[in-house]
């Protein structure tokens, strides 16, 4: 049994130590908001936070995640009202939506470090693949989220 702390809660998973965190989240624990896109760290669909840093969970073995604080899209905000989530709705960002959990986790991490990111900062921080091409709206939503944060 492997013990994990995810979104502030304790979980136990009966998996082999080499299982990627991604699959433990999705299959073992039912936290399916985190997505499988490439499995080789190039798309960002599986992005979660581990001890506050945005990581691609397809390339983190569950044993490496033990004893660390893991945050998934389900835990980004208990009410779904993180500034980025509100901005995403206001800008009508998602199309198919498959990449958006990863986009949001990367964005929320960026905003925590830089509450008013420039376009250049966005470009370097948000490398996630969106096959639906929502990038212009993602950019607009990040700026909107920054404005929301400034008002809070």
């Amino acid at each position, binding site marked *: 049994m492997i013990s994990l702390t995810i979104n502030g809660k304790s979980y136990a998973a009966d998996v082999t130590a080499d299982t990627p965190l991604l699959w433990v989240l999705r299959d073992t624990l039912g936290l399916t908001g985190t997505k499988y896109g490439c499995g080789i760290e190039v798309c960002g669909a599986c992005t979660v936070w581990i001890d506050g840093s945005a990581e691609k969970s397809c390339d983190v073995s569950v044993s490496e995640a033990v004893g660390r604080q893991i945050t998934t899209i389900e835990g980004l*905000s208990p009410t779904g009202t993180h500034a980025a989530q509100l901005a995403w709705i206001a800008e009508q960002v998602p199309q198919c939506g498959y990449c958006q959990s990863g986009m949001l986790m990367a964005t929320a991490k960026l905003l925590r470090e830089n509450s008013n990111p420039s376009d250049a900062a966005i470009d370097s921080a948000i490398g996630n693949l969106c096959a639906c091409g929502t990038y*212009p709206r993602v950019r607009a939503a990040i700026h909107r989220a920054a404005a929301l944060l400034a008002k809070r």
Partner: protein
Amino acid sequence: MNEISTPELSRRSFIKVAAASSGGLMLTVMLPLGGRAALAAAGTVTAYVSIASDETVTIMAPAPEMGQGTMSTLPQIVAEELCVDWSKVKVAQAPAGASYVNTVTGSQLVGGSMSVRGYFQGMLKAGATARQMLVSAAATQLGTSIANCTVANGIVTNTLNGATVTYGAVAAAAALVPVPSDPVILSSTRGYKLVGTSAPRKDIPSKTNGSAIFGIDVRVPGMLYAAVKHSPVLGGTLASTPAKPSGAIAVVPFKNAVGVVAKDTWTAFKALNQLSVSWTRPATAAAMTDATILATANTLMTSGTPRVAETVGSPTAGLAASATLLNMTYTLPYLAHACLEPLNCTVSVTPTSCEIWAPTQAPGMCVQTAATITGLPASAIKVNTVHMGGGLGRKFEQDYIAQAVTISKAMGKPVKLTWPRSEDFRNDQYRPMAVTKITAGLDTYGNPVYWSNRIVSQSILGQRGWLPSGAVDSQAVDGAVGMPYAINNRLVEWVPHTATVPVGFWRSVGHSINAFAVESAIDEIATKLGVNPLAFRRRLMVGNTRGLAVLDRVAALSNWATTPAAGIARGLAYHESFGSIVAQVVEIQRVAATATTAATVKLLRVSAVIDCGLAVNPDNVAAQIQGAVMQGLSAALWDKIGFNSGVPNVSNFNAYPSLRMRQAPRIDVAVISTPGAAIGGVGEPGVPPAAPALANAYAALTGIRLRSLPMSSIMTNMGGGDD
């Protein structure tokens, strides 16, 4: 579905058949078994509309959602006639299968940008029918006649005394009112109130918090997890069932693949890697090699037997009148769909039933697939449509559905099948490669008087057995025939390529190929004549009011009339497809060479205009165009699937790049509605102009004409972020 097996039906025409039949299905046929009394008990007014006592209105979306927004825009049309407050509307995905009368199968299909076009009238009627039944019940409750009632925001008012009653209060009674056969369509006289507005999409909040359930997220109690490995050589077959690897629960053989079942997806993926499989190579494998395929295409171009797709005027006379001939040959590669959600399907087969949860563009076809494999009647098969993480034409196919049904049947348990990403890339139904030769003839005054366009490509319909012998594959010539330009003598021909690469419907299908050739060639002619490409197109489109309006709008949006700064250039492309008209201007900037890098370009901005007749939800139309431009540009810049002796050379996104935030251009979209015009599609028409607009911009910037895709040399993919 039956239509599929009818050989002469093209994809688009069979969708039309299906869509035409859907109007009649809306209310009268799509009633759950159990009948109208069951509806009343559930507060369901019709199969499309149910209203709860808290006034929540739930409207069913009949077309599967793959990101194109129809899960919301179709209910928006119902809500228009239903006269309800959009903020109180919930939408739900309509299932196919046992709980609905099985004539539904065959009507639920998303492709050909047909959803809104196919369902529009039916959805209006569905809303109007429900409204009329609700108002009738309300009138009874208010003790007055229907004529004395008005309705807005789900509240019915007796105009004689101001008394009101809500939909929620009369929903159960309304379900027992006789269904009006010819309901009054209010919007036909008063105009639209909700249609034509950018009402927020209902699926979006769930896509910001991880709660939206995609196919790959489905969880069924007691389910096992499966994965598949296909023959590495396309067309190869399994020689014998391999031994079960450690960790696997079972191995399930297929003709061209092996499935493994395990306790979770990761264990199944690992087991796939441990399989020791022997495959039988097909005789066709050696020829499935890039150089051979291209050489064959070139040979077929010169000596193949062309099939005539279109003749306009007299090509012979046009050729004779030509003083100058321009020969332009364009080459396009095979492409993968590369949906971010890999193929997957969850199925629970029992001796008496089959339930499917699938990210599918064609739920009706899934019923047929499952019936064939299980031997169960369609009434015992239920298909639940869930969100698709992209469809793009790939999730219309049945291969992954059939595998999941077979595995669940073999296990006697629910099973979720997930394809590893590499299997998804290597076993696609690829957008065909094509070689296209356009010859344009100019008379002594420089007027274009002759146009011939010969296309060599594989037949998508032919590979499926849907093309009569000797016929032209409509998919291969879409966008080459019916050219909007008044070149009066034209010939469009197609030569089927003999390659055996599996080919399929990729967003915009033949248009994605032919628009590149046609719009590049038109630009080349304009350049040859020294005429502004916009003016040249305008001249050849005299009388095409809508087309000219789109061109003029894109010219304004892109500041076409102003000369760009040094090192910046613009390219224009125009294309009509799926009943819509799109023009795009791509603006690029030269990035100077350095000691270590060649000169490249940067995408500055794309201006795009669409006239889709009626835009049900303009913001969603704009989103579709933005996405289509990104996809079209990514493919034009970098994407290509190559083959070596039958083995595809791409297995993940690292070898199939696309634009990311840092290289994505700004995209400005204008949506034109033409009142009274037929409704056009919006999911696909944004793709075709992107590649030629980029090539035309590059030619304007450098004088170099790129006739072969992808144009990888002009821009280096920078990948994602810094890490």
